[in-house]
């Protein structure tokens, strides 16, 4: 160890690395096998939601770089506008089916409450992201939605700092703040799933509890 160098076991990078390796070893982070009960169509909707999110972000980046005149007037601009719209339709469609599936299988069981909460918060923020997207269209639809929404938001006291008639503010929320929040929360949600594993079905969990009880007896 040279002069001025912190001991490796006490530096924050070493502690962070040790903690990350302990929480998510490579075989947990990128598993190549899953339990048998995961072989069901209901388990694919989380991955489909992420696929739709990738299409959403990619098409949104193109739209943001080219601007409103391009996405309203040119053929290719309308195509990307359509890709962005249908990506969000599929994103919410698959996310809701994923949510229903996880609700009915009690996905918060076995110490997975944080995974459930991260998913639920991502869902709520996604609604805000979609809402600000409708306000950022730069057309009569956006004007109509903003003038309808402003009274409701003013009545609950948040209109002063969340002004739906302020295009710049809504656009910033839509292309920076909310997408970053959704992507980070999604990443955290996936890491929690990797760490804690997929929730077993109720029947399997009961069988495991019985087996543990019999071993103790």
């Amino acid at each position, binding site marked *: 160890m040279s002069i001025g160098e912190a001991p490796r076991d006490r530096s924050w990078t070493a502690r962070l690395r040790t903690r990350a390796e302990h929480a998510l070893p490579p075989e947990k982070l990128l598993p190549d*096998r*899953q*339990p*048998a009960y995961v*072989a*069901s*169509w*209901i388990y*694919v*909707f989380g991955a489909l939601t992420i696929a739709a999110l990738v299409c959403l972000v990619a098409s949104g980046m193109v739209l943001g770089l080219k601007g409103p005149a391009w996405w309203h007037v040119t053929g290719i601009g309308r195509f990307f506008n359509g890709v962005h719209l249908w990506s969000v*339709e599929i994103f919410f*469609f698959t996310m*809701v*089916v994923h949510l*229903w*599936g996880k609700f009915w299988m009690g996905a918060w069981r076995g110490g997975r409450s944080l995974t459930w909460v991260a998913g639920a918060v991502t869902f709520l923020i996604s609604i805000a992201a979609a809402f600000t997207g409708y306000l950022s269209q730069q057309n009569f639809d956006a004007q109509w939605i903003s003038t309808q929404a402003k009274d409701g938001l003013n009545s609950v006291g948040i209109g002063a700092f969340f002004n739906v008639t302020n295009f710049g503010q809504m656009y910033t929320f839509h292309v920076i703040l909310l997408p970053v929040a959704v992507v980070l929360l999604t990443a955290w949600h996936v890491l929690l799933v990797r760490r804690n594993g997929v929730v077993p079905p109720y029947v399997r969990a009961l069988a495991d509890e019985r087996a543990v009880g019999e071993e103790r007896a």
Partner: protein
Amino acid sequence: MALPGIGALARMPLGAVFDLSGRPRYVHWHFFQMSVTNLLVIVLMVVVFCAAILLPFPHRRAER
């Protein structure tokens, strides 16, 4: 018998599936009011949810 034209098809309740830019249609029953388009999407989500539970998954490979 003459086949119905596109206009007649669009006026049918099922026309909302094909013509999403037309005049919106609503289902109104007591307090419940929803556009036909939104209702169709919700019905489709329920159908897909049931299918995902009931349909067998291909290449089932058990680990344990």
